[in-house]
């Protein structure tokens, strides 16, 4: 019996460990492929120049237009998603705490929204654009991506908020705080790490999505200066270049993917660092 337990323990330990490390191995594999394949094209020009004439046939230039476009769209959309998602998650967990059925229905609907493929959001955004008589533009891309990522912000933040013990909520209300004070002064701070995770997840999804910006933000070789101008994005830059028959251009697609990965890493690390500093400054 004892020996059986030991064997059982070892088998499950191995399987669980294998599952965990194979995930990390896949991540490492993807990063290595991107960097190895894109290494030759990864130059300063890639990040400081826009595509010049003949760029997509191996000519000179870079993907600065797509970097700027992607950052504009991702930051804009994340900003809107926070504005809507943060109060929504707090509302579900503070004001609706008595109404479990409503809470669960809202959660179910948000999960459904989360599950909708991004091309559907793209099509929806496109329909909206036509309705308002707009062209493919930065603002249309921002709104479409915001729609795509708001459910992610709400549900991820909500998951963390829902684990806060009701005792803390009761203690805060017992002091005579209003529900709004409880939500924004206490619950937000208690669930802050979850909020940062929610924002980063949403940002990552927003900056990496190609399908929803395909029709809404459009594509251009220029850097967008105004909200009503079309904007290029890195995922589409990768998509267009990867489909090229010219090996050099395909290599640039990998370089663009490497740039996208680096951007996400930098933003993720900066956000984590800032959130730690914020948590510390909260104590002062």
């Amino acid at each position, binding site marked *: 019996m004892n020996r059986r337990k030991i064997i059982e323990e070892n088998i499950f330990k191995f399987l669980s460990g294998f599952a965990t490390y194979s995930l990390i191995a896949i991540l490492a594999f993807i990063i290595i492929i991107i960097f190895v394949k894109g290494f030759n094209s990864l130059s300063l020009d890639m990040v400081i120049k826009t595509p010049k004439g003949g760029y997509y046939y191996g000519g000179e230039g870079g993907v600065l237009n797509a970097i700027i476009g992607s950052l504009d769209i991702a930051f804009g959309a994340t900003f809107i998603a926070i504005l809507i998602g943060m109060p929504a998650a707090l509302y579900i967990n503070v004001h609706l705490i008595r109404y479990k059925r409503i809470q669960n229905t809202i959660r179910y609907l948000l999960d459904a929204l989360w599950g909708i493929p991004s091309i559907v959001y793209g099509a929806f955004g496109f329909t909206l654009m036509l309705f308002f008589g707009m062209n493919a533009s930065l603002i249309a891309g921002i709104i479409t991506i915001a729609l795509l990522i708001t459910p992610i912000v709400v549900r991820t933040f909500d998951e963390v908020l829902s684990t806060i013990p009701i005792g803390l909520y009761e203690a805060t209300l017992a*002091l005579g705080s209003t529900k709004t004070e409880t939500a924004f002064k206490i619950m937000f701070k208690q669930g802050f790490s979850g909020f940062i995770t929610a924002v980063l997840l949403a940002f990552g999804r927003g900056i990496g999505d190609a399908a929803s910006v395909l029709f809404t933000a459009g594509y251009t070789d220029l850097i967008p200066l105004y909200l009503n101008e079309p904007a290029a994005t890195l995922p589409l830059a990768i998509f267009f270049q990867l489909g090229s028959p010219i090996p050099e251009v395909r290599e640039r697609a990998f370089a663009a993917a490497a740039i996208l990965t680096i951007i996400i890493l930098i933003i993720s690390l900066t956000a984590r660092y800032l959130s730690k500093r914020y948590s510390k400054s909260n104590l002062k």
Partner: protein
Amino acid sequence: MYLQNSETMTKQAPDITLKPKVTSIVKINNLNVHVGQHHILKNINLEITKNKITVLLGPSGCGKTTLLKCLNKLTDLYTELRVSGKIFIEEDDILNTQKNVPVIRQKMGLLSQLPYPLPISIYKNVAYGIKLKGVRDKKLIEYNVEKYLREVGLWNEVKDRLHNSPTSLSIGQQQRLCLARGLAVKPRIILADEPTSSLDPISSKIIENLFRKLKKNYTIILVTHVLRQAVRLADNVVFMYYGEIIEQGHSKDLFKNPKTEKLREYMLEGN
């Protein structure tokens, strides 16, 4: 609000005894609480005397905590609870008033089984309560933070780490911090729901001593199932069993001559 209610009150029965006496700070009339088909508090009639420690004693699940939560309307958080009856706190019928709920709650400080410090610094935990009362002057807040931390005997232990997270404190210290935070909103009553159940004997003793000291200025309602604690602390005892008040009275009389079999049994088991 009292006036608005007077019409409905007279329709039922003109009851002059509803007006609380001077010495009692809380008066409960015919309080009933239902959850679905379950009747979890049955016809509770109770008066809580000012500046005394009233202990709600009874086995787990007898409705002590629900009764406590009725007092500061935390029962509002649970839709499944149906509360009826009257609870007068300083002449305000809090169950039938249109008064702001936070204002009613500020008349009472709550100490729960586990300490729940707010996710801000030790200093800010106490300052939070003071600010809720509308105080904005920084010096006044500083003065009061020290005053309340001294009142619960925590000042010397935390004065050098006021800006640390309260999670760095021991659980007993956290409980005293929660008490200081509760006192900062200047309550009249302290509601304590088995506040020492998660504490070690030394921390429990500190809390008990604090209660003895604090009753000069506050009315304390303490929920416990520990008989010895009730004997040590109570001025008045309310013994509850399955949602009913079985016996109530002065601690010394009650424990000396229990009138009901149930209390006698409970005392026997408790000893």
